[in-house]
């Protein structure tokens, strides 16, 4: 069984700061991490490999420094890592990203055997779109299984896969066919701690680096900024509200003081809260 996991190296959003004067993002010194949602995809892939044998290939598109995250992914026990890196990929929106990733997955298929499953995380924490998984599936003609919470059964002989998928208001149990793309929900497994031998292997491992040409990109105009139908015209900080919060001092009986102040300012709330608490 061959499994490809699409992973992204992202800035640790908790540590991004906005310059107070220029309102621009201060990227310097912001540490990068593996997109947290992707860890669940990596773990799920490793579990399937444990069960069925085969190999796990991690794929990422990004700057040369994304090698750090790939090496980290190898410490968990993945078999190989491919870094898609080229200035032609810079500035890609989700559509251009899916073109590059789909091209690279085809190439991975040629080099290392076609994947049975391509995994992605639910979304990334920097873009938050959840659009790349479906786009890759569409471009490669893979069955699309998003928001998967559990893989019930894999029948390699029949080529079928049964999954539980979160849907609006419930859980869908689906039977589909491989090859498929699965975006995995967060919190459905617990990431392993890599073994010492995997860590040692990862430190020495050769990260496969592909340029657009290496990956087999035929039309460079479909990559990066040029291949992106969406254009970001303006980035700005939100307008502060005209009035700031009115600060209230609560004194030495803060609970009662707060309730008094709140109901004084919003008299209707007392009756409304009274209604809500009836029956408690």
């Amino acid at each position: 069984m061959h499994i490809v996991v699409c992973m992204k190296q992202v800035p640790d959003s908790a540590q991004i700061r906005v310059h107070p004067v220029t309102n621009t993002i201060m990227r310097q010194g912001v540490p990068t991490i593996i997109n947290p949602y992707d860890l669940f995809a990596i773990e799920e892939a490793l579990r399937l490999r444990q069960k069925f044998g085969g190999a796990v290939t991690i794929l990422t598109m990004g700057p040369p420094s994304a090698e750090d995250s790939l090496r980290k992914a190898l410490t968990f026990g993945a078999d190989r890592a491919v870094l898609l890196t080229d200035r032609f990929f810079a500035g890609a929106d989700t559509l251009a990203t899916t073109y590059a990733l789909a091209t690279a997955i085809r190439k991975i298929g040629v080099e290392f055997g076609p994947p049975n499953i391509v995994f992605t995380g639910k979304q990334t924490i920097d873009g938050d779109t959840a659009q790349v998984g479906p786009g890759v599936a569409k471009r490669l003609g893979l069955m699309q299984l998003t928001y998967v919470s559990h893989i019930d059964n894999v029948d390699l002989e029949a080529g079928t896969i049964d999954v539980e998928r979160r849907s609006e208001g419930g859980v869908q149990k689906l039977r589909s066919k491989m090859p498929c793309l699965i975006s995995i929900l967060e919190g459905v497994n617990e990431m392993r701690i890599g073994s010492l031998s995997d860590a040692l292997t990862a430190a020495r491992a050769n990260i496969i680096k592909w340029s657009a040409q290496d990956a087999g990109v035929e039309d460079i105009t479909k990559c990066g900024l040029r291949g992106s139908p969406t254009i970001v015209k303006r980035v700005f900080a939100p307008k502060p509200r005209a009035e700031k919060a009115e600060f209230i001092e609560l004194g030495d009986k803060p609970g009662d003081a707060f309730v008094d102040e709140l109901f004084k300012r919003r008299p209707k709330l007392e009756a409304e809260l009274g209604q809500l608490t009836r029956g408690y």
Partner: protein
Amino acid sequence: MNDKAKAPAPAGRAAAKKELPEHLKAYKHVWVFIEQERGQAHPVSWELMGAGRILADKLGVNLAAVVVGARNEATQAVVRESFNYGADLAYLVADDILTDYRNESYTKAMTDLVNAYQPEILLLGATILGRDLAGSVATTLLTGLTADCTELDVDAEGSLAATRPTFGGSLLCTIFTLNYRPQMATVRPRVMPMPERVEKPIGRVIEHPLGMVEDDIVTKVLSFLPDRDSTKSNLAFADVVVAGGLGLGSPENFQLIRQLASAIGAEFGCSRPLVQKGWVSSDRQIGQTGKTIRPKLYIAAGISGAIQHRVGVEGADYIVAINTDKNAPIFDFAHVGIVADAVRLLPALTEAFSKRLSPHQRDRLAS
């Protein structure tokens, strides 16, 4: 250059030019995908009809509702209802194999409709179903898709200006899809206000065949297990919400939020870091990547108020913020601010509210 890039496509891709390519100028009107499962329309669809109405009026074009579902009375009812929320016309793909949402069949229904009737703007709810569908449709049509918009507008040239938070929610950006059609965007539930429902007669309904049979669809639905009501969080629709953030200091202190919520009949929630740390389950997250809330009263304790959080709570009527840092961004959009340690203040609030709202106390006040 590749020749394929220059050839006219049914929708979307063309050489990168400043002006809209000739074959895409025919794309007109605003469409809203009406999300429904088992005859139950998702409220986000009506919220989008409100936003779509404003765009259509600015552009001087029609607003169309797009309904995809089983061929039955429930689907018809959704079509009729779309006119009560302002549709000028509706497109309908009705087939019993569309009873359950599946990516293959719904993507085909939507892309066929777009190619046949050519809308300039297509809006979908940023729900589980909407995201699964929008990504497939946009990639099939090779057009631009902007996720989780918090504001939609048209610029002087009539292009859709879609604004969304970026960089993990610390800034906003406005995104255009200038040279491709349709311009697609998703919006999360409760971000746009619910428009007024006005009873209207059913208008023009254009039916389009699915052009697919069950055997064409690979993925089969084995079963559907609806969530038990008791496990659902009603956060998005709650009248009162209490939420906690990193200022609580430890996962154990989150119970102070639950206790206050219980004392005042509120739903409880949290900011994103608490979900990422595993302190609270993700269905309780409030903000850009969690739930958007519109309560009458929102109490935020120990939440700094990054844009990520702010865009999820701005629809609240009244926001009370408790934070130790008087310069925290939450005080820029809260109505009332208290500079205090939430961990110490919350038990006092719970006690004071319980006292004031207890039946005994109410009876005494009434007499």
